[in-house]
């Protein structure tokens, strides 16, 4: 008998942990930086988020915390608290029901850009990177974990679903999968690495010809 593939929260929890371990091993997530969440498919009025204070590569599906879209923890008996960035995740899910996967990271190059007083104007260089990161958008600084940060992200995500957070890190949002959100995060890093590499040759950078 043919087995029917069924997407449920248990499977997505495993996907989250897998993505988290991969990004941690790539140093895109650090011991102190980054958190992931997804909108529940079993109960779309809730989302699952990683806990606060647990080393990123040790997070297991049982450690995830379910929250409602009005910001309450569903089961209070967890030994962990939700990531302090839960208001930002919550605000994204409130903004549109199609937003389903979030990766907040401290990707090194993007985080370096986030602390520049006067960041350069980045141009698209290659087709693949331009497609994944059409625009580098930097969200003005708001305190980590604040509602205001969530509001600033909700405003900017209609311009780009991969955003640099000033003096903080990166948020990548996907309607499709953790894999897609991870790919966009890596593409942003690749984009910035390419920029740095090209700058070492000290020539004028050539904008991607098919862009305009």
């Amino acid at each position, binding site marked *: 008998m043919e087995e029917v593939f069924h997407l449920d929260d248990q499977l997505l929890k495993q996907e989250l942990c897998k993505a988290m371990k991969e990004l941690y091993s790539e140093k895109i997530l650090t011991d102190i930086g980054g958190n992931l969440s997804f909108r529940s498919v079993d109960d779309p009025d809730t989302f699952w988020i990683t806990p606060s204070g647990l080393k990123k590569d040790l997070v297991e599906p049982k450690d995830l915390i379910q929250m409602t879209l009005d910001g309450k923890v569903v089961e209070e008996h967890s030994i962990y608290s939700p990531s302090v960035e839960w208001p930002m995740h919550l605000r994204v899910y409130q903004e*549109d029901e*199609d937003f389903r996967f979030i990766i907040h990271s401290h990707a090194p190059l993007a985080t370096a850009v986030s602390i520049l007083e006067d960041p350069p104007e980045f141009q*698209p260089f290659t087709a693949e990177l*331009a*497609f994944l990161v*059409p*625009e580098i958008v930097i969200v003005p600084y708001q305190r980590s974990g604040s509602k205001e940060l969530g509001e600033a992200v909700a405003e900017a995500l*209609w*311009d780009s679903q991969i955003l640099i957070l000033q003096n903080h890190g990166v948020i990548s949002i996907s309607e499709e999968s953790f894999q897609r959100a991870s790919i966009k995060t890596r593409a942003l890093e690749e984009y910035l690495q390419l920029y740095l590499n090209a700058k070492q040759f000290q020539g004028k950078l050539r904008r991607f010809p*098919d*862009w*305009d």
Partner: protein
Amino acid sequence: MTEDYIESVNKLRENFLTEKSQKVFRKWNKVMSFEFSDIGKTYHFKIENGTPNEIVEGEPEKSDVKITTDSETWVGVMSGEIGGMKAYTSKKLKVKGSMPDLLKLQKLMK
């Protein structure tokens, strides 16, 4: 057929008016034009801060996004009978515009 292809332009125009599109295109101040090569007619509409104006017959002074196709293909694409990408790769539909604009517009061509 005349009404069909104009209706299909209007369908795209109305897709700008959904709550989600209004957020996505809120910074758009652009002109879209549609040239139907089989009947030799062009229509266009202006988008101001994401909100489209009425459809006007004729070539605009300047077009940010220009779609050139035949009326039958256009009706097929906008009704979902013909895939937009298939029409594009088979050169039945040509699009001129910047890549960021076209990437954004993809979502409305359904």
